[in-house]
């Protein structure tokens, strides 16, 4: 088991990592990199299957255990299976006009198909409304969490104000009286917000990026060399 669960995976990791690094420098090996990339993309599609399988397993268990709210698990399952069936079978999808005799030749999400209907009237409103809820949470967080506790917090809030006001018409209203070509035009809110973004934000973000890149480089190296193997399930 040790070979199957440790040695071989570590070997695969090392080979895959080294191939990707080499393909960046040696054009003749870029084909290897290409294959590795294509394999990865296919695996990424298989990962969706794994996700779906996990979902099925979890909710079937909930239903069979009759846990509280198991009826909702039933809703999840029905929706999952119907979407899957409608999409894989291309129910109601029109074939490609060049090959009208081949049922599967058309666009999966083509307008008018059942799958498109699910997207347009179920998936789209639900996910975008979920996301839109954040506007409300942001407001409540602003009221409760953003406190000028110390100098650092004041800097954070001050910048947030400049950006919030400078990026709308409020900025023009508040500081529009400063002539645009005078010595103090930089103090107009809309210009100030650009200045803050290009100087302070760029400096901070740049340092964060350099730091993270170093962190990623060293973690990657540890992974490829087999020093860091926590992703295989344990720290040692």
């Amino acid at each position, binding site marked *: 088991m040790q070979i199957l669960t440790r040695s071989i995976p570590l070997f695969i990791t090392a080979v895959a990592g080294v191939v990707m*690094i080499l393909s*960046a*420098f*040696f*054009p*003749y090996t*870029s084909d290897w990199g290409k294959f590795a990339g294509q394999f990865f993309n296919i695996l990424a599609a298989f*990962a969706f299957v*794994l*996700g779906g399988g*996990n*979902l099925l397993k*979890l909710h079937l268990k909930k239903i069979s255990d009759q846990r509280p709210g198991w009826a909702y698990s039933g809703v999840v399952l029905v929706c999952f299976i119907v979407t899957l069936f409608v999409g894989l079978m291309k129910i109601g999808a029109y074939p490609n006009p060049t090959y009208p005799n081949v049922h599967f030749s058309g666009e999966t999400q083509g307008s008018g198909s059942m799958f498109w209907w699910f997207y347009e009237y179920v998936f789209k409103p639900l*996910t975008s409304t*979920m*996301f839109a809820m*954040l506007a409300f*949470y*942001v407001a*409540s*967080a602003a009221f*409760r*969490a*953003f*406190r000028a506790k110390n100098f650092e*917090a004041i800097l*954070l809030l001050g910048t*947030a104000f400049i950006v919030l006001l400078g990026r709308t018409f409020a900025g023009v209203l508040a500081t529009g009286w400063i002539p645009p070509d005078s010595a103090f035009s930089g103090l107009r809110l809309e210009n100030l917000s650009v200045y803050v973004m290009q100087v302070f934000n760029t400096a901070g*973000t740049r340092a*964060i990026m*350099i*730091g*993270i890149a*170093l*962190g*990623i*480089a*060293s*973690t*990657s*190296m*540890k*992974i490829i*060399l087999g*020093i*860091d193997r*926590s*992703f*295989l*399930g*344990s*720290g*040692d």
Partner: protein
Amino acid sequence: MRMSTIQTTLLATAVCASAGVQVVLGSSTTSWLAPPEAPTNLVANDLPWDGGGTVQIDWTASATPEDQLKGYEILAHELSVTPQEQAVETDEQADRAAAQQTESLLEGEGIAPEDARRQAELSTPTFATPPEDVSEWDSLGIIPAVQTTYQATGLNKDGVYIFKIRAIGLEGEFSAPTAASGEIRPVAAFFNGRKLPLLITLALIAAAVFIFIVLARRGMPMRIRKIAGLEAVDEAVGRATEMGRSILYINGIQDMDDLQTVAGVTVLGHVAKTAAEYDAKIEVPTARSLVMTAARESVQSSYFSAGRPDAYNPDLIYYVTDEQFGFVAYVSGMMTREKPAACFYMGSFFAESLILAETGNSVGAIQIAGTANPSQLPFFVAACDYTLIGEEFFAASAYLSGQPDQLGSLKGQDVGKILVGIVIIIGVTLATLQAITGSDSLEAAVNYLVNVLLGS
């Protein structure tokens, strides 16, 4: 290498401006009205040490003076193979045929393998004759008359090209084109020389990390500064024990291929160990099934090393759903019901950071967060008691594990930062001196640093 459009425009304007003077002054002569002389000695070569697709073109300037020229137009034509050859050329057989030819050439003439391959490939197909009329050729652009060299980029690596060049007078009249260059295939070199600085940087950073890991394994003490957020872990776990409530640990919402998730699992190991020592309950809902597996392994070994294997309960570490907002909806609901005393958010977070931190705040938990996603940091910084910012988060996993390997790699990263700092300080000093003095040699030094050492 590409010249910016602004520069080109400026040059063109400058050329035009001087031309205006010329027209007024030289109105008695009519030399500028006649088409300019053609440039000569056109030579095209595949650029060595590149990733392919680039051809270096050199020529001797036209006899017409520079200030009477608008520039040179570079013309390229990709040769198409004649129909009967096309069938062969399209698949692997062509490569095989070329390889055989290469071998025979290598045996016979002893030339460099790369050139041999190119020649072999060139000699196999016969090409359709290029059009006589240069207007049917592709124009790669017009470059200022002061230049006598050009790099044609973005060509098809497998294509075969010939080039011509012609001068353009101030009124847009063309000289006769030069004779066509030889047939060039812009092949990829064995090593992409333009990436050499990158390779050196990579080697330096990798070496620094590696050396410090080795030193650490040999027992050299590695001192790392205190990380404020981590000092609070014990406090948070202690408080949870006192209050008799649970600890919630969220490992981000990305899968194990994200390095932040990996770092989060390492931190989880430490938190779980503290929890085991204090006998506090720790709950870990995950958004990915693979993360659940890794988290179980990690927590289990922590309970073992804390000497409390009996207290380990795998059911408290469970998978919820991959869907971002589905996961958040579940976790926030759970938080309102169970009111954990301490919440840890360690990993890759997106929009859900705010919902989690908000809900955690509303149930009055001590919150410690760590992420390298800068967009989510403000919410964590504002709503949590402690936040590990960016690289600190990666460092935390190393710091907590206390393993010599991890600490060594942290030192290696610091070497990287010193290097970056030194390069910036030297570069900025040179550039500033150059800007003040306007010295040419300093300018050359800055250009070398920026364009060669730090890549194109």
